[in-house]
């Protein structure tokens, strides 16, 4: 079975429509599927539900979809440093559901793993607990969190083979493998596409069972949000 598509236009062609729920990997701008996001911006489907930790930052990444008024709901954990989202949230044109980051990750994992949800002490007694079932487990109040799934996941990996076995680089892994598990269709955007057998099975971060489509995108901008460095010690 050949999962690879010649470009993102082809890979997303029959998938994009109004009202779609989309999971997008990345932490801020680190490890985002740039080409897939650009194609969603170009095609312009509206009323989208975006499930992503930060929903883009500083006017880049998913923030472009906000600027184009394509987004109706955002499910995330952090909206700071994201003026497009803040503005539309305050104006009431975008609904934002905030999750503790670990709850966000685990809800996606639960969605991908076929679980009905989980109890966690995180958020107990807080605004997050509002309307949720509470149980005392191991002597602590814990709240029930439901699984998250999406129509489409767009994730970016460093390298993948034609079956979709993928490896991520450094902290670009973040939510990507979880999201790939939790969507009806996952489109994988990879820096390098190799033949099956190239990756050692022990080195696969995401097995190809969770990937339906693959696009080779050799160049990424990889914008750095905060370039922090230290001076070399003088000899």
């Amino acid at each position, binding site marked *: 079975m050949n999962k690879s598509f010649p470009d993102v236009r082809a890979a997303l062609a029959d998938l994009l429509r109004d009202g779609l729920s989309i999971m997008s990997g990345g932490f801020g701008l680190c490890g985002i599927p740039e080409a897939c996001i650009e194609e969603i911006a170009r095609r312009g489907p509206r009323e989208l539900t975006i499930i992503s930790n930060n929903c883009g930052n500083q006017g880049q990444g998913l923030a472009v979809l906000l600027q184009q008024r394509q987004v109706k709901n955002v499910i995330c954990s952090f909206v700071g440093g994201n003026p497009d989202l803040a503005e539309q949230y305050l104006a009431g044109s975008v609904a934002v559901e905030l999750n503790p980051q670990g709850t966000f990750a685990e809800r996606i994992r639960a969605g991908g793993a076929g679980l009905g949800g989980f109890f966690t002490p995180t958020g*107990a007694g807080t605004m997050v607990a509002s309307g949720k079932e509470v149980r005392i487990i191991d002597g602590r109040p814990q709240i029930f969190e439901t699984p998250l799934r999406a129509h489409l996941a767009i994730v970016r990996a460093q390298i993948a083979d034609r079956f979709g076995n993928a490896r991520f680089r450094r902290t670009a892994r973040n939510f990507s493998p979880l999201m790939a598990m939790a969507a009806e269709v996952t489109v994988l955007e990879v820096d390098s596409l190799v033949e099956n057998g190239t990756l050692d099975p022990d080195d696969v971060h995401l097995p190809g069972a969770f990937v339906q489509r693959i696009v080779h995108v050799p160049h990424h901008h990889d914008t750095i949000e905060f370039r922090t460095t230290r001076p070399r010690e003088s000899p």
Partner: protein
Amino acid sequence: MSWSREQMVRRAAAEVRPGQIVNLGIGIPTEVANYLSPDLGVMLQSENGLLGMGPFPYEDQVDPLLVNAGKQTVTALPGASTFDSALSFAMIRGGHVDLAVLGGLEVAANGDLANWTVPGKLITGMGGAMDLAAGARRLVVLQSHAAKDGKPKLVSTLTLPLTALACVDRVITELGVFDPAGDHFVCVERAPEVTEEMIRRSTGAPVQFGSPLGS
């Protein structure tokens, strides 16, 4: 003389034990890393998926795909590992992070913490704060003793939205070191020349002076 910001950060660094796995929150807590000797063998955890975080890179080492939870470029030390966000928060929620140092807006005498939002101000989101506060084995909060308008930040009952219940083990302010003890704080250390009276005046809960029980 109350402690300077640097002295507060140094005092927080003294809370770190050899070999611990430590998560430092965004902002002032991040600076604690500057005062941890490599001999301690401490592994810093960054909740976006890195254990064994090193200092900022040299200019020619910058990797856009290696950042900390504040999205600053960092390095990975020998012995480091990277992982996905579910595993990262399993590490945090499962009690595998020995110590977290976070900033605070208010701490109550029973250990309740508020540090993620202020009503009326633009919401930024809790990020990993609720998970770290609820999940770390030990939580030290690094914050000013009172707000700029003099309103106490060590209080009997929180006035700001809760981050996590009864989670704070120790608060370090410019006036000293305070342990939540139920209906009061125990002051276990005072900054030089800071009097008991000065502390009582700027604290919104009863303060007992002396060593905490069991230490």
